[in-house]
């Protein structure tokens, strides 16, 4: 039975004994989309992923992946999911190929699956022992391991971590192709550019709470505007509107982010009598910061 939502979490969370963790996440990830899961280190990205994968048991709520219960049907979920841990570790004494072969044997796969094709694209060194590989090359092997059985859903925790820019670009291209093949990708990252480049929707987690889920285009449009304004009057004399934050000042030009009603911004602009003006959707970074940096706003 086909499910429109590949991931469905309802008040889903895992709290550690110290009270930290992930609290009551409600989230749906649609079939065939790339979902970016953003948050700084320690926000709870990895905890949520590990709970979805069954490494941790949910302390609240319930979750379904590919229509299967996260706790009860975890074995079946793992058959159909490709998982890349945040810090992938494999058996050091085996080669990359040895590690992948072991995983494929456990998965009951006889042939090499997509190993050759993906390894060539990623330029992964399969025949050296893992202990002698660099972090980037280990990451490539771990990525291959997650993708080689052609899973319906990829759950990737920081997929481009440790990779050089070219390899990062290749990974992003592969993920977009996977999406085109009807696969779903759930990827965590703290790299805003990366998520902006590939994801359809994004979820932002802060202190274990999912604070926003939206399409990237909506999220950027939703509240924050990037305003560059050139003024005749000295910048110091300008009274900024509420919800604005100065990003940069150079000579008579002021660059600020604005969060709030557009009408209020227009009113303020009319009083400033600007010489030149640019209002644009902000880079995702600015949207991201608006969720984390509220107290800095003027």
């Amino acid at each position, binding site marked *: 039975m086909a499910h429109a939502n590949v991931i469905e979490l309802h008040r889903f969370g895992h709290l*550690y004994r110290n009270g930290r963790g992930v609290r009551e996440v409600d989230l749906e990830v649609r079939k065939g989309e790339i979902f970016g899961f953003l948050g700084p280190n320690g926000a709870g990205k*990895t905890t949520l992923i*590990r709970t979805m*994968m*069954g*490494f*941790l*048991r949910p302390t609240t709520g319930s979750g379904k992946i590919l229509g299967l219960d996260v706790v009860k049907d975890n*074995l*079946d979920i*793992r*058959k159909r999911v490709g*998982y890349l*841990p*945040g*810090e*992938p*570790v*494999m*058996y050091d*004494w085996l080669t990359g190929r040895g*590690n992948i072969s*072991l*995983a494929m*044997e*456990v*998965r009951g796969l006889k042939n090499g699956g997509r190993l050759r094709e993906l390894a060539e694209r990623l330029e992964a060194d399969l025949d050296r022992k893992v202990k002698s590989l660099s972090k980037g090359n280990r990451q490539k092997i771990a990525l291959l*391991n997650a993708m080689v059985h052609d899973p319906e859903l990829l759950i990737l925790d920081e997929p481009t971590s440790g990779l050089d820019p070219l390899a990062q670009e290749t990974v992003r291209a592969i993920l977009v192709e996977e999406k085109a093949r009807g696969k779903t990708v759930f990827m965590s990252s703290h790299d805003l550019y990366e998520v902006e480049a590939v994801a359809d929707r994004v979820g932002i987690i802060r202190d274990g709470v999912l604070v926003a889920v939206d399409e990237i285009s909506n999220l950027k449009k939703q509240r924050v505007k990037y305003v560059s304004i050139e003024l005749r009057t000295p910048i110091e004399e300008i009274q900024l509107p509420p919800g604005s934050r100065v990003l940069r000042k150079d000579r008579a030009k002021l660059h600020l982010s604005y969060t709030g009603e557009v009408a209020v911004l227009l009113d303020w602009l009319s009083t400033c009598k600007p010489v030149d003006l640019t209002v644009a959707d902000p880079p995702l970074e600015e949207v991201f910061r608006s969720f984390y940096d509220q107290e800095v706003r003027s």
Partner: protein
Amino acid sequence: MILLAQYLKANRIGLLVWTLAHMTLILMVAASATAIETQTDYLFRAFSEWMPRGLQSFLGLAPGMSKIDSYIQAKTGALLSLTLPIYATLLAAGVVTREVDSGTADFLLALPTRRRDIMLSRWVGMCLNLAALAVTSWGAVVLGLKAKGLTGSFYGYFWMCINWFLLAVAIGSINLAASVWIDDYSSGVRILLAVVVGLFFVDLGMRIADLPYAARFFNPFSHYDPAYAIKNGGMPAGSVLTLLFMSAASLIVAVKKFDEKQIET
């Protein structure tokens, strides 16, 4: 089977090193049988009259045994009775604690395999490793004695090795269960080894104090009686059942707790 094969492959170097070291030591001891036995016999026998019965038996000085059997028991049965449990402890600590500590647990647990299958395959692998060490130890005793043209209770030595093996499996299984609560490998190994060595000396102390078997019942080392094995070519049924029960109960706990274990980063 795939997981078992992977486990055996992973431990092959360790097994080889332990087996060679163990065999070399036992071969040297067995091949030195006459020389050492004649030199130390008088001293040992003189002291043994004041020793408690339990200690006499442990050191191979129990009455009714031939000099060769006494020697083999004293030098291998007693002194090396710690090596197999120590090896079992190291193997047990490698099953969960090392995999969680190093992060390879993530690799395994992301695969479509049940945690109980991982645990059972590791336990079977541990038993096979210990069996290989026990059998080669017996072979080394026989070879060492035969090389010197001596003969002893070879069948009894075989049972001594079986007793060794069952003791090591019980201790390995207990440590396997305990290791599910320990995520740090280096401190885990230290703790588990300290417990094993502690249990060994507690049992030795109880034997010296001549405490009855019932008082020592819960210590696995109390169910190791090389003198009985050599003299009778077997093991007391109670000891066999107790060691098997300890192993099975510990394995059940290990499987259940590993199934519930939260694998944190």
